[in-house]
């Protein structure tokens, strides 16, 4: 019988770092059954046999943000499976299938400005975009990284943000929180308030957005208003997914399968879809 593509592979956990009370940052051995060469925006299905499976974005790709033969994820405790996954320790095993999702080639982004926008947990899937662009810094013009969180203590990947900020001339990192106590000295306000601080030429920029469902509509309106081209605006969309391979149907968005044609879409591709954003 042909290898059943629903059967996962055991992958060892190398590191498990508690980022916030709800979120754990994992460094995991990459699957080996087939070459594991994911692109930014792709995801894997992770599971614990007997409990369940869930789609999780790659938060660092092997050989780029993560060491060869490993990849990273940031997992939030949200339900049946993730309650348990987030308790796993280095040395434990999780079960992985993937990578899944569309592979977007990067040639078209080269030579442009990049605006990378993440809200909340959205920073996890966005991280490989940042890492790829920094790795090939010379191929891009200005890079702006805009990060929003609900509160200071919910800001993820703080070390990354610090090290990206440290590359002062190279990239600009802007962080804002929705609300904070007086100890917070940074910006306060929804993420779109940061857009006014972008000084790159928006008409020659590609933007990547990833965040909670409510964030998209506001970001889109503002960016388009600033002159961004519809096909330069990319976003990752979340949907319920049960297979990752275009069968289970849960992730359909009008006629599209998010797990196949997405989760990374350009606004041009989904603009006319009533169910997209």
């Amino acid at each position, binding site marked *: 019988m042909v290898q059943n593509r629903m059967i996962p592979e055991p992958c060892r956990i190398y590191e498990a770092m508690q980022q916030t009370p709800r979120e754990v940052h994992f460094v995991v051995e990459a699957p080996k059954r087939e070459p594991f060469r994911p692109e930014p925006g792709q995801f894997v299905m992770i599971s614990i046999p007997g409990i369940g499976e869930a789609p999780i974005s790659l938060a660092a790709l092997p050989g780029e943000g993560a060491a060869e033969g490993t990849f990273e994820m940031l997992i939030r405790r949200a339900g049946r499976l993730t309650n348990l996954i987030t308790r796993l320790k280095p040395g434990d095993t999780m079960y992985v299938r993937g990578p899944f999702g569309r592979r977007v080639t990067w040639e078209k982004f080269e030579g442009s400005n990049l605006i990378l926008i993440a809200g909340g947990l959205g920073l996890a899937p966005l991280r490989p975009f940042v890492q790829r662009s920094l790795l090939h810094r010379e191929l891009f013009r200005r890079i702006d990284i805009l990060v929003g969180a609900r509160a200071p203590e919910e800001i993820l990947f703080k070390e990354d943000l610090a090290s990206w900020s440290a590359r002062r001339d190279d990239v600009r990192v802007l962080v804002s929180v929705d609300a904070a106590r007086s100890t917070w000295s940074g910006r306060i306000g929804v993420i779109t308030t940061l857009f006014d601080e972008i000084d790159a030429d928006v008409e020659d920029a590609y933007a990547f957005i990833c965040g909670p469902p409510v964030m998209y509509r506001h970001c889109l309106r503002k960016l388009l208003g600033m002159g961004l081209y519809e096909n330069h605006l990319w976003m990752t969309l979340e949907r319920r997914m*049960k297979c990752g391979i275009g069968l289970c*149907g849960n992730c359909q968005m009008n006629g599209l399968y998010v797990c196949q044609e997405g989760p990374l879409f350009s606004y041009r591709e989904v603009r006319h879809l009533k*169910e997209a954003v």
Partner: protein
Amino acid sequence: MTERDVYRLPRERLGALVARLERDYRVLGPAPRGDTYAWEELRPGDPVSLDYPTTMLPLRALLAPQREVLFTFRRGDDGEVAFDPPADERPLALLGVHGCDLTGLRVLRAFHDSGTRDRLVTNRLDRAFIVGLACWVPCLGEAFCRDMGSLDNEIPADLYAWDIGDVLLVKVLTNRGRDVLTEVTPMEAATAEEVVTLRRRLRVRLEAFPQHLKFAPERLPIALEAAEGDLLWDANADRCLSCGRCNLVCPTCTCFDVTDASPLDGRTGVRVRTWTGCQVTGFSRVAGGHDFRPGRAQQLRYRIFRKGKYMPERYGMVGCTGCGRCPHHCPTRISIREIFRQVGGTA
């Protein structure tokens, strides 16, 4: 239809056909269950129903069953988990498949051919031996198979039969079909008289199947697109119970949920998929409770669009076979046929 391909199968040879198929296949046919019919295993000697109304559950229940084990697992003492794919099964022989269900299988095939194949299903489809059976009267008042081109559809049958009385006229559609038929009949061609009878009956049949739609199904995508913002979705959805029956009885629905099951000790277990559908509560809800397709009107519109627009655009085949199951089994009689008629009016 070329007469050369049509052979005589006297009714009393049906038993021989079952016996022949039994050698290589698990033979199934429609059998009475309470007030209705359901697909059940036939043993040699069992009567073969040639006159049955549409079964409640579509044939996909046999090819992509309601609950299917994707793999089993065992957890060793070291904690490592070993996985086993499901064991191979005996191939199926399906006896007496109506046009709508043949179309259903064809759509299933198109769905799987379009991209990621589901081996569990395509293997069953590839290996199944299918005997189609012509309908003479609509099984359900809500059927509109003629409009959807299912009434005369013979694909993917291996043999296709018209019951004209004492004898069945059987058309050979595949080599596999020919081999089987050769073993159970002397391969007598239909007589001229029988062919005339068949043609006459086929003509008369059209009266039994009035047309319900004023337009060809190919126009559906455009017609639906034009009606996307129509109030008809809300008007119909007011009566929707979110009971999901329309999805579950549909021969072309393919969606499933995936869950794990295991005894208390957790040392063994299975990952299974279970049918679900776009009208089933929770289908589009993600962790945190956000529902990407909230509201019955949106859900209903999605279902109709998938059948009439998304599937033809994506898989090259309209996703509705016109079997009439979903209106018939909907507790409040929400009717895809009526909706198609309504959108046809606006197109």
